């Protein structure tokens, strides 16, 4: 049986669809979630994979960056090349840590019992995109996802918003750490001393309203952006990378954002920024924008408006309680539409993770990769598929449309990688006739089942299955 038209049957929960659409796919070792409650319960369960596969903390990310910066400074000071080995060592250490972090993140996707949590982390980390500005900061996005995003996946959106907005990775990525109130004490002092001029930077204020909360269609103006940029002054971090609020850099006076006044105390208070973030998080436009984004990411490039409306209502009713919104999505029949032409395309990261999960790649295989292999077998292929990992071209993150990914050049890269994916198998390559069942179960079309049987070798058969439209849709 295959791809029954939606109008013929009542769409309802399917463990296979749950694993593929809301997780990282089927696995020979891990059973798919039995019902929607199991999907949601996974979010409340202890976060075991995070312990097994740790990611760098902010402190480690900052240490790595500092080691490289100091080595470079010493090289400069020495004026010759005698310190080169130190720079090289710092760079190698960073490269190693970066490869380990990449592998840890991938292991979680491949081995997590609850793929939904991993997919949610991917979604929210992309919603709040941060990218490294330069090789020294390569570990920051990992620390950001781990510290600002992951603890709030099953909490309230306002808490995630506050954590993301104040995390040093975000403050650096959208330039907030260097934005200073033009009339603040710090700016006046610098002026008096004829030091470099301090002033505002609108970057975070604008993207927070446009991308992180209200959405670009919402009724906010350039004046709101400017006022909000003034309100956000003072957010920064110390030399250890810890978040600090510096009232001396804050613009004095109250600011009006979306018709409400905030601040005006002397010295300025962080709580006024939090109050504004709480109000913006609770705005109906935010509920609508986030609900639509979730539905677009998980369910369909053109989501059912009825589903989005139900999620948006749940968001407002629950004060932005995210599991309530997820539950509304999972309860909607449109969430269980069959997988086939017109469904979402797996993004390259999802495609690679689901391939390894389907192959049952043992943890030791990935753990044994040196940085060169991580680069050659995983990171570069991702880039060729159109997804240079953690380096999206702008703060709007990755595209969602299937057509943005399934291009001739992008598909060619997927096919090329799939044909070599045998290197990730657990021991011998699986028999393609069995693998098509393991990886796709009833999502495999009769055409694919027949084609898998006719491949000339196991490697080509497995490659064909992974490269197929059936496997690349979710």
């Amino acid at each position, binding site marked *: 049986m295959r791809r029954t038209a939606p109008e013929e049957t009542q769409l309802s929960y399917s463990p296979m669809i749950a694993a593929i659409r809301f997780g990282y796919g089927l696995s020979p070792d891990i059973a798919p979630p039995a019902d929607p409650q199991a999907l949601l319960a996974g979010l409340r369960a202890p976060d075991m994979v995070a312990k097994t596969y740790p990611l760098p903390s902010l402190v480690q990310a900052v240490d790595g960056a500092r080691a490289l910066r100091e080595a470079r400074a010493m090289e400069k000071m020495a004026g010759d090349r005698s310190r080169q080995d130190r720079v090289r060592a710092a760079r190698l250490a960073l490269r190693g840590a970066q490869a380990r972090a990449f592998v840890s993140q991938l292991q979680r996707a491949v081995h997590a019992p609850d793929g939904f949590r991993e997919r949610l982390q991917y979604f929210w980390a992309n919603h709040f995109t941060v990218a490294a500005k330069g090789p020294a900061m390569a570990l920051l996005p990992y620390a950001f996802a781990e510290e600002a995003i992951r603890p709030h996946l099953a909490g309230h959106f306002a808490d995630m918003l506050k954590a993301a907005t104040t995390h040093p990775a975000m403050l650096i990525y959208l*330039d907030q750490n*260097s*934005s*200073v109130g*033009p009339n603040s004490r710090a*700016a006046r002092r610098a002026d008096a001393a004829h030091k*470099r001029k*301090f*002033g*505002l*930077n*609108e*970057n975070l204020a*604008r993207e927070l309203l*446009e991308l992180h909360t209200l959405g*670009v269609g919402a009724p906010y*103006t*350039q004046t709101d*952006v400017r006022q909000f940029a003034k309100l956000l002054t003072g957010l920064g971090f110390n030399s250890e990378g810890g978040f600090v609020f510096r009232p001396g850099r804050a613009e004095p006076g109250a600011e009006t954002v979306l018709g409400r006044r905030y601040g005006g105390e002397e010295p300025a208070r962080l709580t006024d920024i939090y109050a504004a973030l709480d109000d913006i998080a609770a705005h109906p436009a935010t509920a609508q924008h986030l609900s639509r984004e979730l539905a677009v990411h998980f369910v369909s490039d053109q989501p059912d408006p009825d589903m989005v409306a139900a999620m948006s209502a749940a968001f407002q009713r629950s004060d932005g309680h995210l599991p309530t919104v997820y539950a509304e999505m999972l309860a909607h029949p449109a969430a269980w539409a069959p997988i086939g*032409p017109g469904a979402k*395309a797996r993004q390259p990261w999802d495609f690679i993770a689901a391939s390894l999960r389907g192959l049952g790649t043992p943890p030791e295989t990935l753990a044994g990769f040196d940085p060169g292999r991580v*680069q*050659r077998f995983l990171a*570069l292929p991702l*880039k*060729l598929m*159109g997804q*240079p990992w953690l380096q999206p*071209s*702008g703060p709007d993150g990755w*595209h969602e*449309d299937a*057509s*943005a990914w*399934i*291009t*001739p*050049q*992008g*598909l*060619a*890269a997927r*096919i*090329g990688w799939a*044909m070599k994916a045998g290197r990730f198998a657990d021991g011998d390559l699986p028999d393609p006739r069995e693998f098509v069942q393991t990886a796709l179960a009833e999502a495999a*079309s009769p*055409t694919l089942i*027949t*084609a898998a049987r*006719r*491949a*000339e070798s196991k490697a*080509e058969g497995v*490659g*064909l299955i992974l490269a*197929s*439209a*059936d496997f*690349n*849709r979710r």
Partner: protein
Amino acid sequence: MRDTSSSQNSRRAFLQASALIGCSAAAWPLMTHVTLASAPGEDRLVVIILRGAMDGLDVVRPVGDRAWAALRGPSLNGNAPPLMLNDFFALHPALGDLMPLWQAGELGFAHAVATPYRNKRSHFDGQDILEAGTGLDVPDLRVRDGWLNRMLQSVPGIAAQTAFAVGRDELKVIEGRAPYRSWAPDTRLVLSQQSRQLLEQVYHDDPLFRDAGDEAMDLADQLGDDRAMSPQMMRKAANRADQAAALAKFAAERMQQETRIAAFSISGWDSHRAQSGVLRRQLSGLSQAMLALKSGLGPLWKRTTVLAVTEFGRTARENGTGGTDHGTGGAMLMAGGAIRGGRVYGKWPGLDEADLYQRRDLMPTADVRLYPAWAMRVMYGLDRNVLQDKVFPGLDMGDDPRILL
């Protein structure tokens, strides 16, 4: 230099003749066996989308404006001496390698231009409007085709190879129902005959995969080199610095063959902080891309027009962090042997506070769509009404700025 009148006449005659066979070609978007000489004439058009909002004021500096000096400090302008273009405008020093082109009349600019997009200053809506070529200041959701694609729809006898999207970025400006090809220079695909046939079967029922798969296998046959990619090639493909030039080189190779229209994008122009470093890097990439086009096209450079456009300009004033924030009016670059370069087109609005748009941004004095519209009118003989109603809805083309020779 070419004789405009006669080449236009022969092109019209050609287009009329090809209209007779054109409908079957248009009905089959992935047709690859058309006589590829049936492309629209010999002129080449390259469109480069600069994503992230290039600061036109920094690239083409209005040093002759009395308000200029007070707007930007030394941290932005750097210490390198400006390259005077004329007695009013100076070129960013990072574009120094392009000065010979300027002197030869093969490089020009249009200043104080903008799309109809105003006020929200979102990169992503701004780029959508730039690439859709629409006339409203909000994205028109009914328009899904890019303006290059609508132009292709208006020219009969277009073959798939006529237009090429180069690189891995989504490129809405060329997307749409007219045929075009899409490939990245570093893509390889090596398959056994059996795998290829089986893949064709498993993609057959999913149109998105079927079309992309057919294209991929065809293009790999035609363009690729059948060696699998070596680790060294993969590393090179991942190197950001060479990317713009690599895209340009590939585009030039295609245009040596049947391709007449190519598009690619360069991102990374968003310079909120430490702009001098950002622009030095970006402009060096852009400059290398222009030079790669020139050298790759050889004698065809004479018939080539390159237009580089961005979603909007940036604030007239430097911000508090050695950069600039999102603005409105900006600049467009044009290059090629077919253009009347060596000049900065447009009406200069002035930089006094009262002259600025919302006392903040360079005031746009012209619709940026004007320039590609007139370029396409001259190059492809497209009717003015088609350009104003279909390709760039809502545009008033006004008088010919005569950017082409």
